[in-house]
């Protein structure tokens, strides 16, 4: 009885009696969610354009951040280092297309997925080989002063992250929905062969998409790196993004954002109010269990399109 009370009732009593603290927890969760969403966006773009879950996206975040820090450590100012990193990411996209994707046209998606797992390992190894494996600070002048709104503690950095995410999403939605390339992307995702047969240059499309994903990885890398330093664990945020994508639907840009926010808030609230009861440190798996329960009822995610199988 007592255990039931602690699980089912007392957390809600706590929420009701301390609304300001609860609001702080929720806002903290939303901010964490924005950060997850930044990573998830990169996945969603590649999925939309090739039907592939790019497991290497997390490693690309690490690689982009390491490259940026590396350039800055060599004395480049941030206004020069950022474009140079973008160039590096585009070059990588080109190389990936040449070496890998080109050879896997029309392969089952699961094969492509496994290939990106291999790719993730290459990125991790390469990034650390080139730029070293010690933890590095990344400071490109994002403001991070705390301030109070209605008794709640907020941080400028979090606001900055939210605004960045909003801009990024707007740009992506315009890119995907309004431009000819966006339409071509969706065609490619649907069927490689059919897209090729109507004259869509598959190779170019893939380079573009992976470049865009590389750019998103850089943005995510900058935000995460500024918050918690650039280190190997950055590549593990891929594991955070996967449940976000399941929740939101793999091919949905708004889904990545909403999924990120739900996971962010759910995780924080669960950790603060239920975590102590079951031993804490649940953030490693909570998102997954949430996503899995969700999968059972709505396999296509919140915003995903329903897949109807024909026989």
């Amino acid at each position: 009885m007592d255990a039931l009370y602690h699980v089912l009732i007392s957390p809600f009593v706590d929420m009701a009696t301390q609304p300001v603290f609860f609001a702080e927890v929720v806002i903290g969760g939303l901010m964490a969610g924005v950060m997850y969403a930044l990573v998830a966006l990169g996945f969603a773009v590649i999925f939309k354009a090739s039907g592939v879950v790019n497991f290497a996206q997390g490693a690309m975040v690490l690689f982009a951040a390491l490259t940026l820090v590396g350039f800055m450590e060599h004395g480049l100012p941030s206004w020069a280092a950022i474009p140079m990193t973008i160039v590096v990411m585009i070059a990588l996209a080109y190389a990936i297309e040449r070496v890998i994707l080109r050879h896997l046209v029309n392969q089952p998606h699961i094969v492509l997925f496994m290939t990106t797992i291999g790719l993730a390992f290459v990125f991790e190894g390469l990034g650390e080989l080139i730029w070293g494996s010690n933890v590095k600070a990344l400071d490109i002048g994002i403001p991070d002063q705390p301030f109070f709104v209605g008794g709640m503690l907020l941080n400028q950095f979090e606001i900055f992250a939210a605004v960045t995410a909003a801009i990024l999403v707007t740009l992506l939605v315009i890119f995907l929905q309004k431009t000819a390339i966006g339409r071509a992307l969706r065609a490619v995702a649907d069927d490689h062969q059919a897209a090729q047969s109507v004259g869509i240059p598959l190779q170019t499309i893939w380079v573009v998409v992976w470049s865009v994903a590389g750019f998103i990885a850089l943005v995510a890398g900058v935000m995460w790196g500024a918050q918690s330093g650039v280190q190997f664990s950055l590549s593990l945020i891929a594991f955070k993004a996967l449940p976000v994508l399941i929740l939101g639907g793999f091919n949905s840009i708004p889904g990545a954002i909403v999924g990120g926010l739900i996971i962010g808030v759910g995780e924080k609230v669960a950790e603060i109010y239920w975590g102590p009861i079951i031993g804490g440190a649940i953030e490693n798996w909570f998102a997954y269990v949430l996503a899995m329960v969700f999968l059972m009822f709505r396999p296509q995610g919140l915003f995903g399109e329903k897949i109807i199988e024909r026989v």
Partner: protein
Amino acid sequence: MLYREAGQFKTTYGADQAIFPIPQDRWVVYAVIALAFVAVPSVANEYWLQAILIPALVFTLAAIGLNLLTGYCGQLSLGTGGFMACGAYATYKLSTAFPEMNILIVFLLSGIPAAAVGCLFGIPSLRIKGFYLAVATLAAQFFLVWLFNRVEWFYNYNPSGTITAPPRTMGGFMVTGPEATAEARYLVALGFVALFALLAKNLMRGRVGRAWMAIRDMDIAAEIIGIRPLTTKLAAFAVSSYVCGVAGALYFAIYLGSVETAAFDISVSFLVLFMVIIGGLGSILGSILGAFFITVVPILLTNVPEALGLPIGVALAKQLENIVFGAMIVFFLIVEPHGLARLWQIAKEKLRRWPFPY
């Protein structure tokens, strides 16, 4: 000309359905098994056994387990580490709770909880496929490792959080615990691998294997010939997790001796997946080749440069290892999805015609 099968006719379907229908193959396999059981333990030194052969054998078992699920039944799993942890902790609990129980029985029983957990996490496979399912198995991975880390009962309230294999004997020989010799542990691991490789091969060449492969190749067509997708997939999860569980038990009790949950983290799942991909999806021989390959490469990466007078640091070796493994995965998936096992098969074809080009 060395390897010829011309003139060998099979007169019964039984002979035709044998694992090695060609006598040359059969004799080679018998010879390898005999060597492994008799010659290797008397020749190999402690380092070879502990650093290469025992881990390779333990991982072979895990790779066979994963290959059953991923290679034969087509369900990608990233939860191998978690299922292995189930087996390891079950071994610890069983062997401490029933000290007089034969350790081999303990190992075999340890697979059962792993199988049950595997079934549980396999349930989503009814609704979801491909990487969706892979993500669901990640849930198993993270949740199980957390569970064994947080719930003190699993490590008998030991303040350090580690579990240590208690010393147990078998036929008068110490096989677990600090006193056990590398030879004894090697033989136990080898025995398990030989047994499970045979059982898995049998299972996969009969009804069960065909049903699994049918699900893998085309689940809709599988359904019209009467295969029930859910029970078939759950059976695959159960059998696969059972084998992974036993592998986890050996990993803990035979190879490492004492472990923390960190020994079963996500990198183990990836390592076993890599073994299966590089060795060959849907091949028992591939599981063996892949496991040995993945075990040997890191050792080569540290030792070869050293032998050449260019010692490299641990960090650098680790980075190189990542790059090599990643590149191999990409290479094999692009060039030869059936892995080393297929390369071996091609080599045999060539040998059959040698010295003629075709």
